[in-house]
């Protein structure tokens, strides 16, 4: 009994220790990010005073009413040669704040500095310094995930970071090597990511291998089906010209995006199918294949609706601001929808196809593994 108490105390000590390290890290990084201006090459200025704010009512050609404000700002430079000197900035924002934000005292902005004829430094605002806010939310994310999920929360975060690194590395590789297609590189990344993530979640077990095989089969089948459909329909209805942020041909990036985007959902289905069927088998080693198949289909039916829903909203919600922009500029509903949604809907539908396909694939792959185990024993 005393021993147990000691162990408990040790566990508590360890937890307290980890928690305080985390807390310390959090504090240090927050202090750092508030004083990291010298690490940036671009000049940074902190708003010290809003000198004047003019406002004007505007009505655009589509009868949208808005108020435009022009802020005259005094700010202090935080880095570079003129560190500490005052700079004069102007910021124009509107009530809708569709582009520029409203600035207030204490906000930090990236500026380009010029000297006016009178010797007073003037500048224009290039961007907002957002790293502090990002870091605060990132820490909140870490604390909430650890508080709720403990070990699983930690694992979730590690796997997020590992996958982000793999994606970044794959993109770097793609840009450095001119001849290899993005789809091939991303396919490689997808294989590595699903093997690592699934092994990480459930360890070296037969059910993990089943989930990996099901995930990969499901993902690549969804890719081939989508490519085939786009091929026979000549991509009719897809507005590639509206794809944002392009610096390269859109089709390849789009297909690679479909592949990566659906991977998480497909993995989820693969794991759900294999782990639930294996737990049925472990409860009753003599379970018949017919029973397994029926249970598997039932499980699949339960998850297919919500999983397709998750992907659907993750993709389509991002288009809300552009939908509003088009609609309020009097574009017709049909034009607005086809311009903004065709690619996102394609992603969602392709992902949905992957999710639904992985249900039977996961079912039969897992049954094969179970059969193999039964034969062996």
């Amino acid at each position, binding site marked *: 009994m005393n021993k147990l108490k000691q162990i408990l105390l040790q566990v508590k000590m360890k937890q307290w220790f980890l928690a305080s390290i985390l807390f310390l890290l959090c504090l240090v990084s927050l202090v750092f990010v508030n004083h990291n201006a010298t690490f940036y090459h671009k000049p940074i200025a902190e708003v010290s005073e809003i000198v004047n704010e003019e406002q004007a009512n505007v009505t655009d050609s589509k009868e949208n009413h808005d108020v435009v404000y022009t802020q005259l700002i005094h700010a202090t430079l935080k880095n570079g040669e003129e560190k500490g000197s005052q700079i004069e900035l102007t910021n124009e924002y509107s009530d809708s704040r569709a582009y520029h934000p409203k600035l207030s005292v204490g906000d930090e902005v990236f500026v380009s500095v010029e000297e006016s004829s009178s010797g007073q430094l003037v500048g224009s605002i290039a961007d907002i310094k957002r790293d502090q806010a990002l870091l605060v939310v990132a820490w909140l994310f870490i604390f909430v995930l650890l508080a709720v999920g403990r070990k699983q929360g930690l694992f979730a975060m590690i796997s997020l970071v590992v996958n982000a690194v793999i994606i970044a590395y794959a993109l770097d590789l793609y840009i450095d090597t001119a001849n290899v297609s993005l789809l091939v590189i991303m396919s490689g990344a997808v294989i590595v990511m699903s093997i690592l993530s699934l092994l990480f979640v459930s360890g070296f077990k037969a059910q993990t291998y089943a989930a990996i095989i099901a995930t990969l089969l499901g993902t690549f089948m969804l890719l081939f089906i989508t490519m085939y459909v786009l091929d026979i329909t000549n991509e009719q209805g897809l507005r590639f010209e509206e794809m944002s*942020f392009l610096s390269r041909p859109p089709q390849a990036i789009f297909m690679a995006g479909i592949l990566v985007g659906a991977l998480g959902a497909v993995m989820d289905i693969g794991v759900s199918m294999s782990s639930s069927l294996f737990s049925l088998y472990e409860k009753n080693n003599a379970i018949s294949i017919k029973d397994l198949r029926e249970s598997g289909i039932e499980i699949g039916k339960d998850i297919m609706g919500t999983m397709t829903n*998750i992907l659907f909203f993750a993709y389509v919600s991002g288009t809300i*601001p552009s939908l509003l922009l088009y609609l309020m500029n009097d574009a017709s509903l049909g034009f607005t929808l086809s311009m903004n949604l065709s690619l996102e809907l394609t992603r969602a539908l392709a992902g949905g196809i992957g999710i639904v396909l992985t249900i039977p694939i996961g079912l039969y792959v897992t049954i094969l593994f179970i059969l193999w185990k039964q034969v062996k024993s």
Partner: protein
Amino acid sequence: MNALVVLAGVLFLLMAIIGGKKGIRSFIALFVNFFVLLVAVLIMTDPNADPILLTLVACALISCVTLFFINEVNSKTKTAFISTLLTTALMLLFIFIVTEQSMIHGFGEEEVEEQTIYSYYLGIDFVKIAASVIIMSTIGAITDEAIAVSSPMFEIRKHHPTISRRELFMAGMRIGKDLLGTNANTLFFAFFGGYLALLIRYIDLEYTFGEIINNKIFSAEMMTILCGGIGVALIIPVTAWITAYVLTRTPKQAD
């Protein structure tokens, strides 16, 4: 033939073959949800409508469709619904503060460049709309997790009628923890898949690390991932607590 129609047809066939009636219901639910989203957007074009309130109503309707139409109206889905609504409201408040502080609202430089013909003086509040986008992106995942936590808790209660509220809550937390990783992963990959083009652009145009993390679109995307993660984590204790409360409040459960 339109590629979208063909893909939708393929998805419908697969859902009908594999999922039967429930599969068909799931397919219809997707369309109904799409319609809800669209109507919400149409109402948002009115400057007098509050986007936050609209989002909350839209989220309620969407989780209604997901929970009550695909599944059925029973005490499991009802508790899941209440949990979803509560978490969504909490998250909306939190996300609204985050978007305002980090100034990730509105369009990014890269977007404005591409759509120069449009007027940006629209008279609707893009801070609220940015918050609405983030919560809408995760509503599917939050609803999914609510039902995935509450439903097995009802089963546990059925098999152990004498279980205490605290034990029941802990059981719900354990179930939720196992789902946390996969759900966060699903969202994460979906967002990254959608923004591959942006990431490639950053590398192509040689953005520095500092430029990337302070870039409006990148920050907004990271905030979406982080807030999504917080949302799928927060729904677990909320659902576990509400379900435990509901189950131990009445001595006999009807369902």
